[in-house]
């Protein structure tokens, strides 16, 4: 049974501006993670083919082709985990 931890290498809060959370996907799982996110989340905008703006369950986030994403408006670690579980599993 896959878990969020199978896909995620690191989760860190940003400092400054509106608080956000940066999620770094595991290198060998990033393509899989990006594909799953693209299926489940609603693509709002694509910038230069590098940044993809998505919306999912009222949360907006930017996914980078490098396998990192910035989520805005996340209230807690548990909420972040729940969003990732819904996107990836």
């Amino acid at each position, binding site marked *: 049974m896959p878990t969020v931890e199978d896909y995620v290498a690191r989760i860190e809060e*940003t*400092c400054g*501006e509106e608080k956000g959370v*940066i999620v770094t996907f595991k290198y060998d799982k990033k393509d899989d993670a990006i594909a799953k996110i693209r299926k489940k989340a609603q693509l709002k905008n694509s*910038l*230069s083919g590098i940044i993809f703006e998505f919306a999912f369950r009222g949360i907006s986030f*930017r996914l980078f082709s*490098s396998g*990192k994403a*910035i989520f805005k408006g996340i209230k807690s670690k548990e909420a972040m985990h729940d969003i990732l579980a819904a996107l990836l599993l």
Partner: protein
Amino acid sequence: MAYSWGLRNLKNGDEVLVSLMEHHSNIVPWELISKINGFTIKYAKVNNDGTLNYEDFESKFSSKTKIACLSHVSNVSSVVNDVKRIAKVAHEHGALMLVDGAQSVPHMRVDVRDLNMDFLAFSGHKMLGPTGIGVLYGKKEHLEKMEPFQGGGEMIRDVSFRQGREQCDITWNDPPWKFEAGTPDICGGIALMEAVKYLERIGMAEVLKHEKSLTEYAVKRMQECSKVTLHGPSDLSTRCGIIPFTVEGMSSHDVALFFDTYGIMIRSGFHCAQPLHQVFKLQSSARTSFYIYNTREEIDRFIEVLKEIEQV
């Protein structure tokens, strides 16, 4: 310093003087200890361009000032502070001078005797050495008066049990061993020494010259970008190899992750210097920095990506 020296030497009524451009590591420990000992911390102003307001710093000295703490080089703007000038004023008021050399020692020749600083701290990982190790220089007269920071092996000369009194009489080792309880970070020490030797073989004057050359070139090229705002003083002779910047319409984290996609690593956020960002009236900034291994070709590539970011 805050725990080892401050905890035992500062009391209610005393003052510690720091600047608003300090890294959090030169603010938070003093704030923590002030909550225990009840001394006051005074913050000297920084000008809008990131330079130190020397008049304000010097005006805040009084007979209550016990120690002045100042970055030699800002980790955000790379402004080089005249720590010799501040040390002179500190000593005239009977205060000590602590310099944060984390951003100066790796990048330039620092002469502790000429600058007449009482203490100087710097980190290994900023100068090609390992993480988790750093250096605290102190004048011998101060180190001899100071009590140990932590207790354990090596930092003692003698631990003698007195029967009948049921206690141990302890005498301390000489500095610097007095401050190094337990088995030291041997690997870290050897690795840091090799980093120092490596930099000395290159020559710190050469290191600084290379960084200044790259900084001047990068600033000139970044000024080609209309949506990019550079922060810090325009006089590059007062700066080292760090350039904080913002891109109109993009958060610093988006900028950093965009560069990351191209394998270019820069930093975003407050850079552990939130008060300075308040001075700059910035919610955060992106920061590019250079060292001996960087080249002009890398800056050209950085500018190419920066121009692509402007189009986003």
